């Protein structure tokens, strides 16, 4: 859906679903998931449907991700750091 961004010299190396992905500095974790080409980024804990980022500005909560083992993070509100591990959020987080 989005064109692969040109490789920046200061690209940040993160891990999305276990795969290394280089993303532009300043990208959010949700943007990294989109660049990695994930078809969806979570499943709804209510309906089980696949969902993906919708608003990218902290409103819709569709981009909930597991970031560095911390579940239910708003992916669009977290800026990538080198080595960040980003995973899909399957249903509700475990308590």
């Amino acid at each position, binding site marked *: *859906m*989005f064109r692969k961004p040109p490789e920046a010299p200061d690209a940040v190396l993160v891990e999305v679903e276990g795969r290394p992905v280089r993303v532009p500095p300043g990208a959010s974790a949700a943007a990294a998931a989109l660049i990695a080409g994930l078809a969806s980024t979570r499943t709804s804990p*209510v*309906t089980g449907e696949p969902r993906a980022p919708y608003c990218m500005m902290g*409103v*819709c909560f569709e981009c909930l991700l597991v970031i560095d083992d911390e579940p239910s993070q708003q992916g669009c509100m977290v800026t990538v750091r080198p080595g960040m591990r980003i995973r899909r959020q399957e249903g509700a987080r475990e308590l």
Partner: protein
Amino acid sequence: MSDRPFDLVVIGGGPAGLAAASQARQLGLSVALVDEQPAPGGQIYRAVERAEAEGRATALGEDYRHGLGLVRAFHECGATLFASHQAWQVEPGGRVFATDGKASRLIEGRRVLVAVGAIERPVPIRGWTLPGVMSVGAAQILHKTIGLVPDAGVWIAGSGPLTLHFAAEIVAAGGRIAGILDTAHGRLPETALRHLGGVVRGWRYVARGLGYLARLRMADVRRVSGVENVEALGEGRVERVRWRSGGQWQEAPASGLLLHEGVVPNTHMTMAIGCAHDWDEAQKCFRPRTDRFGMTDVEAILVAGDCGSIGGARVAECRGRLAALGAAASLGVISAAERDRLAGPVEAEVSAHGALRGFLDDLYAPAAELCVPPDDVMVCRCEGITAGRIREAASLGCRGPNQVKSFTRCGMGPCQGRMCGPTVTATLAAALGMTPQEVGAFRIRPPLKPLRLGELAALADAEAGE
């Protein structure tokens, strides 16, 4: 726990908040600005310093680069910036609680200016929860922050200035737009005639819009007008888009679909504080009741920018300055006469930049089917509640959104009703034969964003350590 009470705590680092902070500092007030983003600019000037440093700002347009001046003035004004801080509760007396994601802190203000901007109006259509369906604003944030552009097969559906602006921006940046499905149903000549004075005074904005159209024509971007009933179709992801125009159903393959039906004030914070709100029929949204300086009916709370009333970036900037004047006068720092003298030229600017608003509101009013969707369309994305379930709750005797929430869980998910609130109010109003004002909105309670217990506990730790 709180270093000292600031004269003014501004929440939101967009044009209204930045202008208010700078103006308030000029008047001698101590100012803190709390912003959820890592760098000031708000959504309209999102990442403007980074874009400038990377040489991308000029391509994003002169309007965007205007934000650079605002951000730079803010950095020099001497206000305290709490960046990457989410305000999760604001008390009517002026105490602001915010978290940086790890720990909460209390920031006290003698006055608090809520300048949290707009959110995109929800666009409840069939298939809008499919991955690959996003808002136009979301795609623009990706472009502004990291230069990401849509590739082949991405459609835009909706109406409003942002759809044209964004499509033109993407074409100029070398991205691709499969086509624009224009859902505006206002008739251009008649609407322009009705608002002739505004169109003439707002000619600069009109010229800009015509420029976008020319650029899209040059790039051969397909535009379909008079579009209704847009639907996203696909298994697990959007694969096709379907729509009706001129009475005919049409379908096209799609790798993505970007929706936009204008923006509405982000009223979550002012509603949680308990400020009075009124239904604005022209803009089809609730907005906080204010005087000309943005003072609400709660003494310590002021409002500026699009979270008060949709006016666009330049109007928001002016309203920020007016609110700073209002706050300074209410604190006795300047006299009412001085306030009014300083406000005069700013109000003239509001009137100039806002001249086209009536025309835009009229031309781009959302279609009835988007405000009050058919039974099978999902309204509450978090809890999977359809419009039919809301009507069913109404038929069982629910008279307002809060009862519907209790009956169905609609609005009870993590987004706390941000994505469904406007649709729930409109759908209920239609079902009950009441006005949106009578039906009201969801009751909003803190925390305004989900908060971990650890983030809350840090507040008590800080208190104990004092």
